[in-house]
């Protein structure tokens, strides 16, 4: 029988600092791709709700494709395909890290576009009219009436997306990014302790994602009260 406590007692002083160091990269990927996903999400949500038929079709196409593809496939396509399609360009700058952020950001943009769209559409158009009829400019109506309401609708699913994203960064190991899974694989194979190492990694991920999910639940409860 495996004696996990003993293994940890013996090795944790070496494993934990190393894994935490790698988890910084995990957090970095998560942060940058989240920012990128929000930008893409806003852009495609606006296109999706636009009156222009071409923009709408473009957004629908993007959203369906990006949501229909497994993330691994998105990462492989983003990392490997452009250099091969355009071999004339210098691709030195295009690191695995850049590809990971871009790939996760593109994928997340499609998810957030749908989230933001539901936020925009859930608002009755009477809200804008009421604000405007009180003498607000469209900018003020947006700031004081529309955005505060939209935020209530959009924040919890955006938080859930962030949790999913944090876990999805683990897939970046598959294109060779030196994040926590990559670190874990090398420790597990050099120390012959895969069970202990991967369970420890699971605990580290949980320690990162659980506070986030508590925060989302708190938001859901708080925001529901004043509907």
């Amino acid at each position, binding site marked *: 029988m495996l004696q996990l406590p003993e293994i940890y007692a013996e090795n944790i002083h070496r494993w934990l600092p190393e894994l935490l160091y790698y988890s910084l990269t995990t957090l970095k990927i998560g942060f940058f791709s989240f920012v990128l996903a929000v930008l893409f999400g806003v852009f495609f949500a606006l296109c999706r709700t636009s009156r222009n038929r071409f923009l709408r079709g473009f957004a629908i196409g993007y959203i369906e494709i990006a949501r229909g593809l*497994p993330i*691994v*496939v998105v990462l*492989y*396509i983003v990392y490997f395909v452009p250099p091969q*399609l355009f071999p004339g360009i210098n691709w030195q700058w295009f690191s695995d890290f850049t590809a990971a952020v871009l790939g996760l950001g593109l994928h997340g943009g499609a998810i957030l576009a749908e989230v933001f769209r539901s936020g925009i559409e859930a608002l009755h158009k009477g809200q804008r009219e009421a604000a405007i009829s009180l003498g607000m400019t469209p900018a003020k109506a947006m700031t004081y009436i529309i955005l505060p309401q939209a935020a209530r609708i959009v924040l919890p699913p955006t938080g859930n997306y962030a949790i999913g994203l944090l876990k999805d960064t683990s897939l970046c*190991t598959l294109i060779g990014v030196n994040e926590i899974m990559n670190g874990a694989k090398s420790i*597990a194979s050099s120390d012959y302790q895969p069970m202990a190492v991967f369970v420890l990694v699971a605990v580290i991920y949980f320690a990162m994602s659980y506070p986030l999910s508590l925060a989302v639940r708190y938001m859901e409860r708080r925001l529901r009260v004043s509907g």
Partner: protein
Amino acid sequence: MNFFQIIEDKGWYFFTTLLSGWPATLTVAIGSLAFALVFGLIVALMRMSRWKLLRWPATAYVEFFRGTPALVQLFVIYFGFPDVGYQPSPFQAAILGLGLNGAAYLSEIYRAGIESIHRGQMEAALTLGMTPRRAMQYIVLPQALRTMLPPMTNFAIVLLKDTSIVFTVGVLEVMALARQLVTETLMSAPIYLMAGAMYLCVTIPMARVAARLERQRQAWH
């Protein structure tokens, strides 16, 4: 090397090779879906139980499996279980890993569906002399199923996409074959794009079905 030249020369070979990975992909998807459907229901019922001893482990299970990546769960099972004396086959590890991960999600869908059914339904069934279990089985669950169908379809799509990571534990599915083809021919662009297109051929129609089910469900209410 011209992209279209490659497609012309090797396209059919790539296509048939990738196609031969689909049985494995679907086996893992369906196997883990079946596992998650059954185990997820058990977990959901445990979480709604009156007994703390049933509720707590179920809650801990859901929280932990939802809080960690599926890839880590797969690695613990495939590379870790041998440490405790059990070497699962790639298929066993894949189905167990995605199934356990999926059950945590499905239990939440079950729970939301069951809780959406009005308490009065359960009470009406009890006053008719049904046991709580009968009432759940004949009255509450059939109604909840209607609410749950759209999110379950979405879950099936997610699960199908998630099978693309099980090559890491040695299952020879679509992505595994794609990677092999790339190592063999070094032509990553056409191969990964073709693999992506194949996934879309399955996931987009499924998403359409889920959207239609959701519209129907809203029409019922």
